[in-house]
């Protein structure tokens, strides 16, 4: 019973690896150079380790079968020790050879991770906060830092160099489809190169425990063509569009009260820095660091009940009249 369960589960592993499930947050379907190098290493390791495990199981089976077929009560057959000694040396040699293969494989993958692709990598600064991500791009014309949050856009085929830091505790930046993780450590600055090779949406998540809402500290990654990326960056550089209708204008006015103390909407008086920049909030895929989808309902829910959706988040419950809350949600929806 045990054996079958094990065997079946183990049989699933290579299947899954080969099938390369099309997840948006998995090292198994690599979409970047770094993840590809690691994926190859993973395959090599899985095969070598699988073979080793098979050998061990066969060894146990053989031993039990051989012992079972003896007739004497005590195991003192002459010659066994000599054969075993030879076996011991063979085993040692085999292990050393296997490990050498793996160490070399690991070394090659390690080199691939740190090889600089193109000297003029685009620099992006990512900072971990409890529990969201501040992301800053540099505007190539003015040199100013353009801030956004919880969504990383990457141009296809170009290397982006992330500078990773933390404002409070240790976090860890991980987009498994593109590369391995690197911790974001207060007082230190780490860098990570990302060279995406597939278009599409991916998901990243904090992978170092960072407090109550560690589970809801995710972000979206969009890999797009360089042209689309440039359009996106240009949009992000612009200040927020002015409100187009009366409801949106009312929303903006309400927003200037309790929301503006923590949030920036460029082009308005809202200039608080404690929370995420919301200038182009509606252009993003999700809100509250991957907690909710970017929909009207999501926004309304988040404004009304942040502590129910993400208990412990720094986003406070704000007592707004229902009409005001609606207006704010409507206003935020216009921030494209």
């Amino acid at each position, binding site marked *: 019973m045990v054996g079958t369960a094990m065997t079946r589960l183990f049989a699933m592993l290579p299947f899954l690896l080969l099938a390369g499930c099309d997840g948006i947050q998995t090292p198994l379907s690599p979409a970047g150079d770094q993840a590809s190098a690691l994926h190859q290493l993973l395959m090599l390791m899985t095969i070598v380790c699988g073979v080793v495990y098979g050998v061990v199981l066969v060894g146990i089976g053989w031993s039990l079968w051989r012992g079972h077929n003896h007739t004497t009560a005590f195991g003192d057959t002459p010659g066994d020790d000599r054969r075993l000694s030879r076996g011991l040396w063979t085993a040692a040699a085999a292990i050393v050879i296997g490990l050498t293969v793996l160490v070399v494989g690991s070394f090659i993958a390690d080199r691939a991770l740190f090889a600089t692709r193109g000297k003029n990598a685009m620099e992006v*600064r990512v*900072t971990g*906060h409890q529990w969201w991500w501040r992301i*800053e791009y540099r505007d190539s014309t003015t040199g100013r830092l353009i801030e956004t949050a919880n969504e990383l856009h990457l141009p296809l085929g170009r290397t982006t160099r992330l500078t990773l*830091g*933390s*404002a*409070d505790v240790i976090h860890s930046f991980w987009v498994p489809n593109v590369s391995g993780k690197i911790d974001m450590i*207060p*007082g230190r*600055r780490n860098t990570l190169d990302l060279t995406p090779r597939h278009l599409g949406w991916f998901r990243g998540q904090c992978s170092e425990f960072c407090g*109550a809402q560690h589970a809801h500290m995710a972000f979206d990654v969009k890999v797009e063509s360089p042209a689309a990326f440039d359009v996106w960056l240009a949009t992000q550089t612009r200040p927020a569009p002015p409100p187009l209708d009366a409801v949106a204008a009312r929303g903006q006015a309400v927003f200037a*009260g*309790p929301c*503006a*103390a*923590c949030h920036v909407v460029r082009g308005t008086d809202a*200039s*608080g*820095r*404690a929370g995420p920049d919301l200038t182009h909030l509606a252009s993003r895929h999700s809100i509250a660091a991957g907690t909710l989808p970017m929909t009207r309902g999501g926004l309304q829910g988040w404004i009304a*009940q942040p*502590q*129910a959706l993400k*208990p*412990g988040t*720094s986003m*406070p*419950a*704000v*007592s707004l009249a229902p009409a005001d809350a609606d207006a704010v949600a409507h206003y935020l929806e216009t921030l494209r």
Partner: protein
Amino acid sequence: MVRGLTIVLIAACLCGCSKEARDLGPSLPQTRPVDDNDARITAYQDNLYQVSQGGRYFSWYGCSSCHTDTAKGDLNLTDDRWHSGSGFAHVFGSIADRHGRLGFGARVPVEQLWQLTAYVRDLPKHYPEKRRRVELDQSSEPQGSSWSGPQ
């Protein structure tokens, strides 16, 4: 006598609970304290987590830039002298209504004002080195309307 002791022990345990409790979630006050004896005060003033959250907002909203350890007179919050009363509602009112154009009452959500008040009233009990230690730890966090990136 044994019974008395048991009660004292249980009471001590319960105190331990409320002091250390960390109730995350949506049951927080949406209105100002009624007066200095508001029943909700204990849940903030005597809770280490709420006080500490207040400390973070104290820095986020830029309070610490004026209210330093060496500030003079009114601005010094560590000397345990309160110019407009040390009661919870008094301090709450000072923060919310008596900061002129900063207008915290309108800008800061009520729940955070509770936490800020609890923190400010707790400040005189903190050792200066402890305040400095915490401030250094949080020096990369946003302060006021500026944030220049992690140190």
